[in-house]
């Protein structure tokens, strides 16, 4: 297992490298540069602009800048935000925890509730419950996240005033867990809906497939009580593919978080990305891309390890 993890980590290095090159190239093709986004372009065409460009190192060709950037990243220096002048790692560091909090709560809710809904629907196939849940799940995957968010904001914030509309906690006040959870509830639930609907559909299909398998029939034939058949034989096997599906869904969850953080002014990496695009803050954008990619790679690795542990058939070739 250890060797397997090490090999997976080694494989992630070229992936990170390719993604860094692609993003660096693309980010530098963006029309306009930080200097023109920072100040009136009319004022910055002359010597002042050139001096600023030179100070920021923008007068070098792209590939040179990339190599310099990469060398610095390897020593842990992601550079300074063009916009605020703060170290990129510090800016991102502030945003990592909020995003991890939001997405992990949404992920857990979507996996647990989605699996429960899907399994129950499968056990009562063709019942009214199954039918209603299937339709609800289809609505869940179809309705855009931002429309759900608008509906939630309209009902729970604008009309009923039950939840705060933005931020992570009471502005100005001291941090409190209660206030944080109060702020978290709405964005986390809205973010989880799309994945929850997907997981429901998936769990239902997986469970239906497993229920028709020979080993479930065998378990029934040897007279096991129904809860043992479902719990031990069917459910555990249906759960396996769900791990893979959840991994594949992580990038989508982050895409959703991008919108949700933007709408609820949640101070995470999604909102930071949108701001970095608006401000053409290349260094920040590059740092964000690398950190996001590393996080997704790490989550993938974690899921693979989980899968290997969960599936006794998998004998990892070490």
């Amino acid at each position, binding site marked *: 297992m250890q060797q397997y993890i090490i090999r997976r980590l080694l494989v992630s290095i070229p*992936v990170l490298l*390719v*993604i860094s090159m692609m*993003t660096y190239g*693309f*980010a530098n*093709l*963006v*029309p306009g540069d930080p200097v023109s986004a920072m100040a009136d372009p009319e004022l910055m065409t002359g010597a002042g602009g050139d001096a600023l460009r030179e100070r920021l190192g923008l007068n070098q060709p792209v590939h040179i800048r990339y190599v310099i950037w990469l060398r610095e990243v390897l020593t842990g220096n992601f550079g300074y935000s063009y916009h605020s002048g703060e170290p990129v790692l510090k800016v991102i560091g502030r945003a990592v925890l909020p995003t991890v909090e939001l997405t992990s709560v949404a992920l857990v809710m979507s996996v647990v509730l989605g699996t429960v809904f899907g399994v129950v629907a499968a056990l009562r196939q063709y019942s009214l419950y199954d039918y209603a849940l299937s*339709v609800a799940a*289809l*609505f869940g*995957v*179809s*309705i*855009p*996240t*931002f*429309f759900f968010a*608008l*509906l939630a*904001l*309209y009902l729970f*914030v*604008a*009309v009923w005033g039950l939840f705060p*509309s933005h931020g992570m906690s009471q502005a100005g006040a001291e941090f409190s867990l209660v206030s944080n959870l109060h702020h978290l509830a709405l964005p986390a639930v809205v973010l989880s809906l799309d994945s929850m609907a997907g997981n429901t559909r998936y769990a239902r299909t997986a469970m239906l497939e497993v229920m028709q398998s020979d080993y479930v029939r065998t378990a029934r034939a040897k007279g096991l009580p129904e809860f043992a058949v479902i719990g031990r034989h069917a459910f555990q096997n249906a759960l396996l593919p769900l791990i893979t599906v959840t991994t*594949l869904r992580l*990038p*989508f969850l*982050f*895409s959703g978080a*991008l*919108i949700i953080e*933007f*709408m609820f002014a949640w101070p995470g990496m999604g909102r930071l*990305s*949108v701001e970095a*695009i608006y401000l053409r803050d290349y260094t920040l*954008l590059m740092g964000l*891309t690398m950190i*996001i*990619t590393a996080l*997704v*790679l790490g989550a*993938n690795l974690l899921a693979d390890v989980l899968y290997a542990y969960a599936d006794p058939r998998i004998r990892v070739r070490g």
Partner: protein
Amino acid sequence: MAASGAAGDVAAEVEQAPRRGRRRVWRRFRRHRLALLGTAILVVFTFMAAFAPLVTWHDPNDTDIDALRTPPSWSHVMGTDEAGRDQYARVVYAGRISIAVGLVAAAISTIIGTFLGIVSAYAGGWLDNLIQRAVEIVMMFPTLFALILLVAVIGASVWNIIFIIGILGWPGKTRLVRGQVLSLKEMDFVIGARAVGAGHWRIMLIHILPGVVPYVIVAATLTIAGAILSEASLSFLGLGVRLPTATWGNMMNAAQSLNVLKNQPWLWLPPGIAISTTVIAVNFLGDGLRDALDPRSTID
């Protein structure tokens, strides 16, 4: 003589098979009521978008400074927006963009995905390896993040957005097609075709491609839904199609103000319902097609 008679029977049988298959597909599809409903909704929406000038009474971009953000009335059935433009006309015209984005982007990603999937599985070796690593990298990257980045680079015109959504959507299809082709290429008819000297391209196009078409159609349908949602999200963030061109996404951008959200629901509810209905209809259609086309399905 007898031999040629038998061959003739086989030929007739082969000729009838696709027709019988199609009839069975239609029978299965017809039984899926929600799929029929989805198809009907899509036909109506496409018709309205295509003949937008005939079903609306205002130009979608005409501003009226005497009627800013007016609630629904007889002359403006869905009210007007912040520039006094007719909301109903904008919702209908915006459908053109969403439907075009969905269809064209799905076509692009399906063609790329199918081609790479077939080549990957058929060629095997280093090419297969290369394509599969590319699939993994693209799949791992959050689509919306990549979309925002690329659109910022090449500019937010409708065609650029269609193109980018199209080229970001292929990995799923590649993986799906590859899986099918891996088993298809070991089939007797492929080995037979190779034995009589058919070239690689001929085998891939004539012998293998038809076998993956049912799966590809279902995946392509679901891709349409994804593409429509991607464009809407992008435009909603204000990074997609620019005003005054109306899209369902950028129309809802106005609702980011809590005041608009609360007091002018006609500004964001109609486009939100339009996009949700369209995507639900596409997904209904996709589900129906899956049940009808799946060759392994035992429902008759």
